[in-house]
């Protein structure tokens, strides 16, 4: 399936071709999970990523099926 990924924080720096308006268009297996998507993008624990799906922080094993786009954030703290 095709999914559009918007990257936040410093994550776009990892993808030189990244376009803020468009995001990244990814082709990924229909059964892919959140963790599969992170692996596909080679994002690791040290990138401190969080994915929000339907306004909730998604678990690593959560499936992406049915989604057309996701936002990947970096964990931040308040000031």
């Amino acid at each position, binding site marked *: 399936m095709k999914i559009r990924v918007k990257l*936040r*924080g*410093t994550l*776009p*720096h990892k993808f030189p071709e990244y376009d*803020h308006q468009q995001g990244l268009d990814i082709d990924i297996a229909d059964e892919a999970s959140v963790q599969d998507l992170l692996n596909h993008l080679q994002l690791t624990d*040290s*990138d*401190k990523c*969080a994915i*929000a799906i*339907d*306004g*909730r*922080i998604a*678990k690593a094993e959560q499936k992406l099926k049915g989604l057309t786009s996701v*936002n990947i*954030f*970096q*964990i*931040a*703290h*308040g*000031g």
Partner: protein
Amino acid sequence: MKFLKVDMSQKTVTLEDVKSDYAGLGGRGLTSTMINAEVPAECDPLGPDNKLIFAPGILSGTSAVNTSRISIGAKSPLTGGIKESNVGGTVATALGRLGIAAIIVDGQAAANELFLLKIDRSGEASLVPGDEYKGMRTYALVEKLLSTYGEKNGVLCIGPAGEFQLGSASIQASDVDGRPCRAAGRGGMGAVMGAKGLKAIVVELGAKNSEALTDPEAFKTASKAIVKAIKENPFTGQILPSAGTAALLGMVNGLGAFPTRNATAGQFEGADNISGEKLAEVITERGGKTTHVGCTQCIVKCSNEYVDKNGKFVTSSLEYETLWSMGGMLGIDDLDAIATLDFLADDIGLDSINAGVALGVAMDAGHKKFGDSQAAIDMMEEIAKGSEFGKILGNGPEAVGKHFNHHRVPAVKGQSIAAYDPRGMQGNGVTFATSPMGADHTAGNLVGEYLTGALNPLEAEGQIEASRNAQIAMAALDCTGFCLLAEPALAAPGATEAFIELLNAKLGTQMGIEDYTNMGIQTLKAEKEFNRKAGLTTKDDRLPKFFYEEALSPHNKVFSIKDEDLDSIFDF
């Protein structure tokens, strides 16, 4: 260490040794302990009996990084309770180096009298008549002060809002570039300064450190560990330097907790136009600065410089809270307009959070339309003029709610909430409700817990405990002068121990983590005690009714923490 005591009634300035009761205290621990002990709790916050205390943190003035915060405390004219508002810039370090543990401003000048407090690098201090500065906005004021006294001075000052003694009046601090763009915004501390008749404190920078460390070697080792932790932490080492606090906007909006149009929705459709990523893109395109040092000895560099289409400076630093209060809360998704509103808040000397929310309540009441940025700018100018309606706006959201007889006022103890809707982030609602400071995100913000998935923001479970722990941790941190934005780095293995080692090496103490935590608990206890004496009760520890009654989209949740649980939070 010394106290610099300023009596505005007698126009005297004296230097005294720190009394043993206050030895080892700094920042919020010192302001709150002293206010609780010495300020009559039922006094008029704008009268002569209130004390306005400026206390650098315990570590301010040492060589440790990110230790340039100063706590400003008094009885608040906004909340009617105790207040500590802290700010960076350059003055905390300068005072720490002079061995000044606090400036304590007491008494009151006659109406229409205005003074500056000038402190030179040898520690000599005097009150100087300041009539010529009457009515000045902060940018012009600081420019004039620096041209009179020299560029190498740090300034804490008020603008017209402080002189009008408005509930949203801030005390502005000059940053390392000499711009009055950093704010001790919350609680109306600027109004207290205005009521005292003090327009500015001007402190010469560059005094050599007068306070010997008890253990310089241990201090050096611990300092290095802190630098390493800050640099290696992705938030303090990468995210803040490149996107600043604005990085939070997309995330909080994504989680449906971004209070939009006076908290009538949890997601703003214009969020992408004002997000941290968009902000960085616009600043970069126009040749501004996405990374900028705001405060002395900072290695995080969360600040930015926003410029207009011609590359001309507009404001610094455009931060998450203001992108919300002057943006999403007003339905405005135009960065240029928000930057102008941020500049006006700094220039007039207003808390951009409380002022923005006041404008939001006015819009919600139908006074102007949401999204009308010109109307927002006009309302800010109305405050600066000191017109009847301007004073209502400048006194904050509750005053505006009363004026329009409008009940949707997102404030606790008179102070507006910050950029996290309590229905979408229940634990932040607990902090807003129960903090002795009134609704204040810096008192115990749980957004990091929610983003890591450690806590479900929408369920009641675990919120009281998490807020309690965060409030204690913040109260302790606010004693030290260490910037709360650098604090997440202390989660690295050994970093908290190194941080406590810094305190021990400075003070000659043997504190452990428990003693450090206890510093936070004792501070909160003093604050709660003062508020109780001032007449605040558990009824004041509640969110406004509409948070319990109106469900917030997209999660359709109300605030669901029980009153008895709120009342148990400080059972220690």
